[in-house]
């Protein structure tokens, strides 16, 4: 191999090496460029799931709250009814006491 041919072979090898490195850099750039997209996708996936979970929790709480409130009101109906019944039984005594206050200035 002549000297010129030797130089040509070496230059060609260096060109090939440069091409290999360029390709590697391009690939690395592409990998990094994918990162933002991947993060964005993960963000949407994770937060959407969390929001769905949150919405389910809220809806369940609303429903449970309504049921508890209804149960409370239903139980309280009996209490109020009892209060009215007991008070009605004492009404005559109360009227007598008020008449006593009015007529005799008692109390």
């Amino acid at each position, binding site marked *: 191999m002549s000297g010129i041919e030797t130089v040509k072979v070496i230059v060609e*090898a260096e060109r090939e090496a440069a091409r290999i490195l360029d390709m590697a850099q391009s690939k690395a750039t592409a990998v990094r460029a994918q990162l933002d997209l991947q993060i964005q996708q993960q963000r949407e996936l994770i937060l959407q799931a969390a929001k769905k979970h949150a919405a389910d929790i809220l809806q369940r709480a609303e429903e449970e709250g309504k049921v508890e*409130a209804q149960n409370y009101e239903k139980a309280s109906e009996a209490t109020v009814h009892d209060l009215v019944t007991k008070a009605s039984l*004492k*009404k005559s005594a109360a*009227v007598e006491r*008020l008449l006593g206050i*009015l007529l005799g*200035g008692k109390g």
Partner: protein
Amino acid sequence: MSATGKFTADILTVANEKAQSIVANAETETQKALSDAKSHLSREAEDVVRNANTEAEGAKRRHISEARRRVKLKEQQEKSRILQGTLDQTRQRMTDMVRDQSSYLPYLVGLVENGIRELGINDVTVHLNQEDLKRIAKAKLEGEVGRKLGKPVKIEYAGRPIETSGGVIVANSDGKIRIVSTIEQTFEALESKMLIEAGKILFGD
């Protein structure tokens, strides 16, 4: 292999190794960044769920609190209705009493007696409503009052009737000092006290 061949092969080997390293570094960096991002996103997601749990507790408490408020309001309305009914019934009993001379006259005697005591004089003017002016045995009333006070009194009856369902106004001779004991005034004056007393009886344990 010739020396040139070995040299060029070395160049390409080094280039390939460096290329692999460049790509591997990019992938490692990316994986780490993605892992960090996921970790951060997980914390964000936990915050979203934690906030939802807090909000959910609030929502449940709000429903219960509103129910309690409605029940309390209903209870207050019922109590108020019963109290008002008791006052109305008392008022009706007073009206019945006014119609019954046998109980009304002693009541009037007591009112006039108290009026005279409060005024501290023996000579008074008594104001009655139109019906009482006609039907009350005035001499009897004067006699009863005097007997209860233990001294003679002089009662003059105002000719002009007062607007009331019963009771009296006892005034001094010039009418400047008046002890108002009409049923309406007595009711008004004692209403707060009566409500408290009725409440104790009706709703006390």
